[in-house]
Protein backbone atom coordinates (compact mmCIF):
# COMPACT_ATOMS: atom_id res chain seq x y z
CA UNK A 1 0.00 0.00 0.00
CA UNK A 2 1.28 3.46 -0.80
CA UNK A 3 1.86 5.48 2.30
CA UNK A 4 2.81 9.00 1.34
CA UNK A 5 0.03 11.41 0.52
CA UNK A 6 0.82 11.98 -3.11
CA UNK A 7 1.01 8.23 -3.75
CA UNK A 8 -2.43 7.80 -2.24
CA UNK A 9 -3.80 10.58 -4.45
CA UNK A 10 -2.24 9.19 -7.61
CA UNK A 11 -3.29 5.62 -6.94
CA UNK A 12 -6.83 6.88 -6.38
CA UNK A 13 -6.63 8.73 -9.71
CA UNK A 14 -5.16 5.75 -11.54
CA UNK A 15 -8.58 4.11 -11.99
CA UNK A 16 -10.72 5.21 -14.99
CA UNK A 17 -14.03 4.77 -13.12
CA UNK A 18 -12.80 6.98 -10.28
CA UNK A 19 -11.61 9.62 -12.75
CA UNK A 20 -15.02 9.54 -14.40
CA UNK A 21 -16.65 9.98 -10.99
CA UNK A 22 -14.44 13.00 -10.29
CA UNK A 23 -15.25 14.45 -13.71
CA UNK A 24 -18.95 14.07 -12.94
CA UNK A 25 -18.48 15.81 -9.59
CA UNK A 26 -16.92 18.83 -11.29
CA UNK A 27 -20.50 19.52 -12.47
CA UNK A 28 -21.87 19.46 -8.95
CA UNK A 29 -22.55 17.23 -5.94
CA UNK A 30 -24.17 13.87 -6.61
CA UNK A 31 -25.59 10.87 -4.76
CA UNK A 32 -24.29 7.33 -5.14
CA UNK A 33 -27.21 6.46 -7.38
CA UNK A 34 -26.57 9.45 -9.63
CA UNK A 35 -22.88 8.63 -9.80
CA UNK A 36 -23.59 5.00 -10.68
CA UNK A 37 -25.86 5.85 -13.61
CA UNK A 38 -23.28 6.00 -16.42
CA UNK A 39 -21.58 2.77 -15.32
CA UNK A 40 -22.50 -0.87 -15.63
CA UNK A 41 -21.35 -1.65 -12.14
CA UNK A 42 -23.20 -2.17 -8.89
CA UNK A 43 -23.90 0.47 -6.25
CA UNK A 44 -21.63 -1.30 -3.74
CA UNK A 45 -18.82 -1.15 -6.29
CA UNK A 46 -19.39 2.59 -6.73
CA UNK A 47 -19.40 2.95 -2.96
CA UNK A 48 -16.04 1.25 -2.77
CA UNK A 49 -14.64 3.68 -5.36
CA UNK A 50 -16.05 6.59 -3.34
CA UNK A 51 -14.37 5.25 -0.24
CA UNK A 52 -11.00 5.26 -2.03
CA UNK A 53 -11.57 8.83 -3.27
CA UNK A 54 -12.59 9.91 0.20
CA UNK A 55 -9.51 8.25 1.68
CA UNK A 56 -7.34 10.27 -0.69
CA UNK A 57 -9.14 13.45 0.33
CA UNK A 58 -10.41 13.95 -3.21
CA UNK A 59 -14.05 14.06 -2.17
CA UNK A 60 -16.07 14.67 0.97
CA UNK A 61 -19.39 12.95 1.64
CA UNK A 62 -22.26 14.52 3.49
CA UNK A 63 -23.45 12.87 6.68
CA UNK A 64 -27.10 12.67 5.83
CA UNK A 65 -27.57 8.90 5.53
CA UNK A 66 -30.52 8.99 3.21
CA UNK A 67 -29.29 11.40 0.56
CA UNK A 68 -25.62 11.01 1.13
CA UNK A 69 -24.01 13.08 -1.57
CA UNK A 70 -20.40 13.45 -2.61
CA UNK A 71 -18.61 16.66 -3.44
CA UNK A 72 -15.23 17.35 -4.89
CA UNK A 73 -12.23 18.72 -3.01
CA UNK A 74 -9.77 20.53 -5.26
CA UNK A 75 -6.80 20.80 -2.91
CA UNK A 76 -5.32 17.29 -3.42
CA UNK A 77 -5.68 17.75 -7.17
CA UNK A 78 -3.63 20.92 -6.94
CA UNK A 79 -0.91 18.91 -5.19
CA UNK A 80 -1.05 16.33 -7.95
CA UNK A 81 -0.83 19.07 -10.57
CA UNK A 82 2.15 20.64 -8.88
CA UNK A 83 3.90 17.29 -8.91
CA UNK A 84 3.18 16.73 -12.60
CA UNK A 85 4.31 20.24 -13.39
CA UNK A 86 7.73 19.38 -12.05
CA UNK A 87 7.73 16.33 -14.26
CA UNK A 88 6.81 18.41 -17.32
CA UNK A 89 9.48 20.96 -16.59
CA UNK A 90 12.06 18.92 -18.40
CA UNK A 91 10.24 19.41 -21.68
CA UNK A 92 9.07 22.92 -20.99
CA UNK A 93 12.57 24.13 -20.33
CA UNK A 94 14.09 22.13 -23.18
CA UNK A 95 11.52 23.50 -25.61
CA UNK A 96 12.19 27.05 -24.41
CA UNK A 97 15.78 26.44 -25.39
CA UNK A 98 14.71 24.99 -28.72
CA UNK A 99 12.58 28.06 -29.36
CA UNK A 100 15.51 30.38 -28.70
CA UNK A 101 17.73 28.18 -30.86
CA UNK A 102 15.30 28.32 -33.80
CA UNK A 103 14.99 32.10 -33.52
CA UNK A 104 18.76 32.41 -33.54
CA UNK A 105 19.09 30.18 -36.59
CA UNK A 106 16.53 32.13 -38.56
CA UNK A 107 18.05 35.43 -37.55
CA UNK A 108 21.43 34.25 -38.79
CA UNK A 109 19.83 33.07 -42.02
CA UNK A 110 18.23 36.46 -42.59
CA UNK A 111 21.49 38.25 -41.89
CA UNK A 112 23.51 36.09 -44.24
CA UNK A 113 20.59 35.82 -46.68
CA UNK A 114 20.93 32.05 -46.85
CA UNK A 115 18.04 29.60 -47.02
CA UNK A 116 17.97 27.85 -43.64
CA UNK A 117 16.22 24.79 -45.09
CA UNK A 118 18.51 21.77 -45.27
CA UNK A 119 19.05 20.60 -48.81
CA UNK A 120 21.00 17.42 -48.22
CA UNK A 121 19.34 14.32 -46.85
CA UNK A 122 20.78 12.68 -43.76
CA UNK A 123 19.66 9.17 -44.56
CA UNK A 124 21.64 7.10 -47.06
Amino acid sequence: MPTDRLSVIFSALADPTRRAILARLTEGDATVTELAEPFEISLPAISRHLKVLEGAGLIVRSRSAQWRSSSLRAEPLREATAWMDRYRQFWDVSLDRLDAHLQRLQQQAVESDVDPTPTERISP
Partner: protein
Amino acid sequence: MTDSIATDELVIERVFDAPRELVYRAFTDPDQLAQWFGPVGFSVPRDSVDISVTVGGYQRFVMVNDDNPEWSSPVDATFTEVIENELLVGTEEFEGVPGLQGQTSMYMRLEFHDEAGGKTRLVIRQGPYTPEMEPMARAGWESSFTKLEPLLTALAG
Protein backbone atom coordinates in the same frame (compact mmCIF):
# COMPACT_ATOMS: atom_id res chain seq x y z
CA MET B 1 -2.28 5.53 -31.70
CA THR B 2 -5.81 5.31 -30.36
CA ASP B 3 -7.29 7.03 -27.37
CA SER B 4 -7.89 3.76 -25.62
CA ILE B 5 -4.20 3.15 -25.06
CA ALA B 6 -3.33 6.79 -24.56
CA THR B 7 -4.19 6.86 -20.89
CA ASP B 8 -0.61 6.65 -19.73
CA GLU B 9 1.01 9.19 -22.01
CA LEU B 10 2.62 12.48 -21.32
CA VAL B 11 1.48 14.80 -24.12
CA ILE B 12 3.16 18.14 -24.71
CA GLU B 13 2.39 20.59 -27.49
CA ARG B 14 4.28 23.68 -28.48
CA VAL B 15 4.05 26.04 -31.47
CA PHE B 16 7.31 27.35 -32.84
CA ASP B 17 7.70 30.34 -35.09
CA ALA B 18 9.80 28.37 -37.55
CA PRO B 19 9.14 26.12 -40.55
CA ARG B 20 8.69 22.37 -40.02
CA GLU B 21 11.98 21.48 -41.69
CA LEU B 22 13.87 23.55 -39.17
CA VAL B 23 12.15 22.09 -36.13
CA TYR B 24 12.63 18.57 -37.49
CA ARG B 25 16.28 19.25 -38.10
CA ALA B 26 16.72 20.39 -34.51
CA PHE B 27 15.99 16.81 -33.45
CA THR B 28 17.83 14.97 -36.21
CA ASP B 29 21.00 16.97 -36.85
CA PRO B 30 23.63 16.22 -34.17
CA ASP B 31 25.12 19.73 -34.39
CA GLN B 32 21.67 21.17 -33.75
CA LEU B 33 20.58 18.80 -31.00
CA ALA B 34 23.74 19.46 -29.01
CA GLN B 35 22.93 23.17 -28.99
CA TRP B 36 19.58 23.07 -27.26
CA PHE B 37 18.56 19.71 -25.80
CA GLY B 38 18.10 19.24 -22.08
CA PRO B 39 16.97 21.36 -19.15
CA VAL B 40 18.89 24.38 -17.87
CA GLY B 41 22.01 23.22 -16.03
CA PHE B 42 22.57 20.32 -18.40
CA SER B 43 24.34 20.17 -21.73
CA VAL B 44 24.70 17.62 -24.46
CA PRO B 45 28.35 17.31 -25.55
CA ARG B 46 28.53 17.33 -29.33
CA ASP B 47 30.83 14.29 -29.42
CA SER B 48 28.27 12.24 -27.50
CA VAL B 49 25.65 12.67 -30.21
CA ASP B 50 25.22 9.99 -32.87
CA ILE B 51 22.08 9.93 -34.98
CA SER B 52 20.98 7.77 -37.89
CA VAL B 53 17.57 8.90 -39.09
CA THR B 54 16.14 5.75 -40.66
CA VAL B 55 13.75 3.07 -39.43
CA GLY B 56 15.96 0.85 -37.28
CA GLY B 57 18.41 3.73 -36.93
CA TYR B 58 19.33 5.33 -33.65
CA GLN B 59 19.54 8.54 -31.65
CA ARG B 60 22.26 8.43 -29.00
CA PHE B 61 23.54 11.21 -26.78
CA VAL B 62 24.40 12.03 -23.19
CA MET B 63 22.99 14.80 -21.02
CA VAL B 64 25.64 16.01 -18.60
CA ASN B 65 25.14 18.21 -15.56
CA ASP B 66 27.16 21.41 -15.88
CA ASP B 67 28.21 21.52 -12.22
CA ASN B 68 28.78 17.83 -11.69
CA PRO B 69 29.88 15.95 -14.84
CA GLU B 70 29.46 12.67 -12.93
CA TRP B 71 25.75 13.30 -13.06
CA SER B 72 24.90 12.27 -16.59
CA SER B 73 22.01 10.64 -18.33
CA PRO B 74 22.55 8.66 -21.53
CA VAL B 75 19.82 8.35 -24.13
CA ASP B 76 19.85 5.48 -26.63
CA ALA B 77 16.70 5.30 -28.71
CA THR B 78 15.87 3.29 -31.82
CA PHE B 79 13.71 4.83 -34.55
CA THR B 80 10.65 2.75 -35.43
CA GLU B 81 8.95 5.29 -37.71
CA VAL B 82 10.52 8.08 -39.73
CA ILE B 83 8.75 10.45 -42.10
CA GLU B 84 11.04 13.31 -43.01
CA ASN B 85 9.85 16.65 -41.61
CA GLU B 86 6.65 15.03 -40.31
CA LEU B 87 7.12 12.24 -37.83
CA LEU B 88 9.72 10.58 -35.62
CA VAL B 89 8.89 7.64 -33.39
CA GLY B 90 11.56 6.09 -31.24
CA THR B 91 11.68 3.50 -28.49
CA GLU B 92 14.17 3.11 -25.71
CA GLU B 93 14.83 -0.09 -23.80
CA PHE B 94 15.77 -0.01 -20.16
CA GLU B 95 17.45 -2.97 -18.55
CA GLY B 96 18.76 -3.69 -15.10
CA VAL B 97 16.97 -0.78 -13.47
CA PRO B 98 16.56 -1.59 -9.77
CA GLY B 99 13.00 -2.67 -9.06
CA LEU B 100 12.11 -3.20 -12.70
CA GLN B 101 11.35 -6.72 -13.84
CA GLY B 102 13.45 -7.52 -16.89
CA GLN B 103 13.27 -5.07 -19.74
CA THR B 104 11.05 -2.06 -20.05
CA SER B 105 10.41 -0.11 -23.20
CA MET B 106 9.31 3.50 -23.54
CA TYR B 107 8.33 5.26 -26.72
CA MET B 108 8.60 8.86 -27.79
CA ARG B 109 6.57 10.18 -30.68
CA LEU B 110 7.34 13.56 -32.24
CA GLU B 111 4.78 14.99 -34.64
CA PHE B 112 5.56 18.07 -36.72
CA HIS B 113 2.46 19.89 -37.97
CA ASP B 114 2.14 23.01 -40.13
CA GLU B 115 0.49 25.98 -38.48
CA ALA B 116 -0.73 29.17 -40.10
CA GLY B 117 1.89 31.84 -40.70
CA GLY B 118 4.74 29.44 -41.40
CA LYS B 119 4.75 28.13 -37.86
CA THR B 120 5.12 24.58 -36.63
CA ARG B 121 3.16 22.77 -33.96
CA LEU B 122 5.26 20.12 -32.26
CA VAL B 123 3.41 17.34 -30.43
CA ILE B 124 5.42 15.14 -28.11
CA ARG B 125 3.90 11.93 -26.78
CA GLN B 126 5.92 9.91 -24.35
CA GLY B 127 5.04 6.81 -22.43
CA PRO B 128 3.95 4.49 -21.13
CA TYR B 129 4.12 5.81 -17.63
CA THR B 130 3.02 2.79 -15.64
CA PRO B 131 3.30 1.92 -11.96
CA GLU B 132 6.21 -0.39 -12.84
CA MET B 133 8.21 2.65 -13.95
CA GLU B 134 8.34 3.95 -10.42
CA PRO B 135 12.06 3.37 -9.81
CA MET B 136 12.91 5.16 -13.03
CA ALA B 137 10.53 8.03 -12.81
CA ARG B 138 11.30 8.30 -9.11
CA ALA B 139 7.60 7.94 -8.56
CA GLY B 140 5.45 5.76 -10.73
CA TRP B 141 1.90 6.69 -10.01
CA GLU B 142 1.60 8.99 -12.99
CA SER B 143 -0.43 6.39 -14.85
CA SER B 144 -2.93 8.69 -16.45
CA PHE B 145 -1.53 11.92 -17.80
CA THR B 146 -3.73 12.23 -20.83
CA LYS B 147 -7.06 11.60 -19.21
CA LEU B 148 -6.05 13.34 -16.04
CA GLU B 149 -4.83 16.60 -17.44
CA PRO B 150 -8.11 18.12 -18.65
CA LEU B 151 -9.55 17.36 -15.26
CA LEU B 152 -6.60 18.80 -13.40
CA THR B 153 -6.54 21.88 -15.56
CA ALA B 154 -10.23 22.46 -14.97
CA LEU B 155 -9.86 22.10 -11.25
CA ALA B 156 -6.54 23.61 -10.41
CA GLY B 157 -7.14 26.99 -12.01
